[in-house]
């Protein structure tokens, strides 16, 4: 067992510090040390995308990032997606409306990937492009139709908001 390192980071805007082994994944740090269990581990080898979070604003798989790599950085997880007063992010509302989740295990990863997508490609509107963008996350329950519908709706909403 290697010596523990001290890390400091912000998660959903709050500062945290912790003592971690260098080998500890960021996902385990978030789930076990910070009790932020909304981030889920589906494959632990970087394919399923369930553990997707934002690191300094960009989507990453927290099972492939070590906690020590997050030192001094900004982490956003599904727990921080809704506003301070509990108002849901538009993509959360759209997921509910379009039955885009069943068991809900993959959902946090999808939500974080989509938040990243809508930020980096605010003009996305083509369904095929959206499907390609979502192909980095796996869902076994829904067959994706509700997820695609939710992204199409929010993307259109954001476009409308920008033009008005």
């Amino acid at each position, binding site marked *: 067992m290697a010596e523990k390192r001290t890390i400091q980071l912000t998660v959903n805007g709050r500062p945290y510090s912790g003592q971690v082994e260098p080998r500890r994944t960021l996902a385990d740090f978030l789930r076990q040390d910070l009790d932020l269990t909304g981030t889920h581990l589906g494959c632990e080898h970087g394919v399923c995308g369930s553990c997707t979070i934002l690191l300094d604003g960009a989507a990453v798989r927290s099972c492939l990032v070590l906690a020590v790599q997050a030192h001094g950085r900004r982490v956003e997880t599904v727990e921080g997606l809704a506003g301070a007063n509990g108002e849901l992010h538009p993509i959360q509302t759209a997921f509910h409306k379009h039955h885009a*989740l*069943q*068991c*809900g295990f993959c959902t946090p990863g999808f939500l974080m990937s989509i938040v990243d997508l809508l930020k980096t490609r605010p003009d996305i509107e083509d369904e095929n492009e959206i499907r390609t963008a979502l192909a980095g996350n796996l869902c076994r329950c829904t*067959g994706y139709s509700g997820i695609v519908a939710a992204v199409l709706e929010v993307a259109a909403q954001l476009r409308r908001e920008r033009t008005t």
Partner: protein
Amino acid sequence: MSRALFGTRVERREDLALLTGQGCFTDDLKRPGMLHAAVLRSPHAHAKIRSIDVAAARALAGVVAVLTHADLGAAGKAIPLLQPNPLLVARTQLLLAHDEVRYVGEPVAFVVGDDRYVAEDALELIEVAYEPLAVAADAQEALKDDAPLVYPEIANNLASRFTLGFGDATEIFARADLVLRQRFKMHRGAGQAMEGRVVLAEYDRRANGITMWSATQAPHLVGRLASEMLGMEQRQVRVIAPHDVGGGFGPKAIFYPEEGLVPFAARALGRPVKWTEDRREHFLATNQERDMYHDAEMALTREGKILAFRDTAVFDTGAYVPWGIVDPWISATTIPGPYKLPAFQVNMQVVYTHKVPVTPVRGAGRPQAVFVMERMMDLAARELQLDPAEIRQRNFIQPEEMPYAMGLVYRDGAQVIYDSGDYPACLRKSQDLIGYDAFRREQAKARVEGRYLGVGIGVYVEGTGLGPYEGAIVQIESSGKVLVTTGASPQGQGHVTTMAQIAAHELGIDVDDVTVITGDTGAIPFGVGTFASRIAVTAGNSIALAAREVREKALDIAANLLEANKDDLELAQGSVFVRGAPARSISLGALALTAAGARPGYTLPPGVQPGLLATNYFSPSQAAYASGAHVITVEVDVRTGDVRILDYAVAHDCGRMINPMIVEGQIQGGVAHGIGNCFYEELIYDDNGQLLTASFMDYLLPTAKEVPTAKIAHMEVVCPLNPLGVKGVGEGGTIPSAAAFAGAVEDALKPFNVTVKEVPLSPEKVRKLLREAGR
């Protein structure tokens, strides 16, 4: 106004917590002083264990215990068989292998440590001396006389052989106009829920009881087998499937060794223990469905009427048979499907191999059966130059022939009697959704341009809602709100919404005034489990019947209190009132308090037992037969072998729908699982029984890019067998998918006259078909 109405698109009550990261999955749970476990698994498909040295692992800092079979004492026995059958020579596994391992991934040692990292470190310090033995890796090879044996005392590795059927097929084959013969291989693949298996157990020394949380589909089953393995009474082992379980699809509906090892260790150590499966373990040690070989023969008239169907099948069941032979049995009885067969015979051989045990995966043997029958229908249509839809129409059981006795015995021991359905209309509806005739014209045009489009059909009948029962307790709480308690735990199906809809509908209240508790053996004594598309039928009707009883009870007590005639009373908006005199009313909450004895001295009406609650265990008389037709259109790239799905249509009948939104979600999700099975997902083993596709890099789950949004039409032929008129819908989206896909690919490649004999296809296999056709 109540928005509870049965049959409406009530939005899910589960969603808010899951969308905000507040879900409660088993791995999210923590208990004070909790330890973490890891499992050492066999790297060999078949080997003798000569010795196990755990000294170094035990000495590692942070390791609390290392268990091998020698440490298990009375728990060292084989796991009880779930479905004994006189036709089966059954073998089930031990919690930890004793002196022999029979599949790669079989548990050999169990380490408990301060955290998962340490426990996994310790696995590497355990020295096991294995003596590798010859491997039976393929079911067909395993049947041969010189094949290595999984059990020396079981000749030819034959776990079971049975024949089902009716009519005199031999005689018919001898004189039929047309006889077709074809060999098929159908590989079904894995469940692969996004959440793996997770077990947490805690021992209470004073109460001498265990509380166990498991990401299972069947908490009562787990509790029963865990208590048996631990030598405890069932009441001493409480099993909870937490509020959220991350997908099921069949493989979580079984008791696994870890569900014995975790509570065993928790009891032995006096500390809570958690084990969380990783994805590699899920590939190596969570049950799968796999290979089935069929030699099918069909006899027909010149007009395309089926006269007889004969099939010799080989089913790979892996190294153990925890679920008995339900899978191959379901498969055998599903083959006839929606068609009238004068004679039918299936000869099934169930074969042990050195691979992970096989238990049901979404569809449970039915996709294989439908694949065989529908492929044969397509081949017959080609031979007789009929349209594939037309030959099916010529053979369908007609709606006016219902109920229709097939002449077979289903897995529940009852006769296969289709209760209701309209197969001809269902297929036409699915064809309409896809625009079948227009597509045929487009196809002809495309062929001229050198593009290869095809359309395929898959029609199925599925026995859903199997017994023995599921139950519910419906109770009015003193607030006047309703509590529904059922053993049937959800894994994404939306029980908390649909069950509330049923109760709210029966009791005239809002769905949000219904609390639903699921999957806790401490809350309801009996339960079976959420699998086999059975919960709407079994638990759904239990809730309705219990709610009706509660309603009567409320009216009885209210009649007494209001000094009114029961017939003059009405229950609405959470109160009972006298019709025409709404001021004379009493709330459900007040009635619940009265029934609970809160009015000392008050006499309950004659025959009324205390408590405003009722328990009902609905036990269906037989399966409720759902049905459907899938029509798929594809384009095949003949250079690369890639297949693109152009459109996907589903017309189906699941009886009355409780919530169409949730029904459509089940179908679309099932279709995705089916598409995976058609083209992407394959558990490929080498000759040594090593799984070569043991990661999501190699075993491909379909993504949003591969799964189109299906067009769905509902038929709603009311089931006459249960009060709600419902049938199951959990598996129908998957069942005919591979058959329709295979038909569509074959149709696209009609100019090359290829025959699709196996799924999953892959670009490589499509190219192979074309190469063999000289292209």
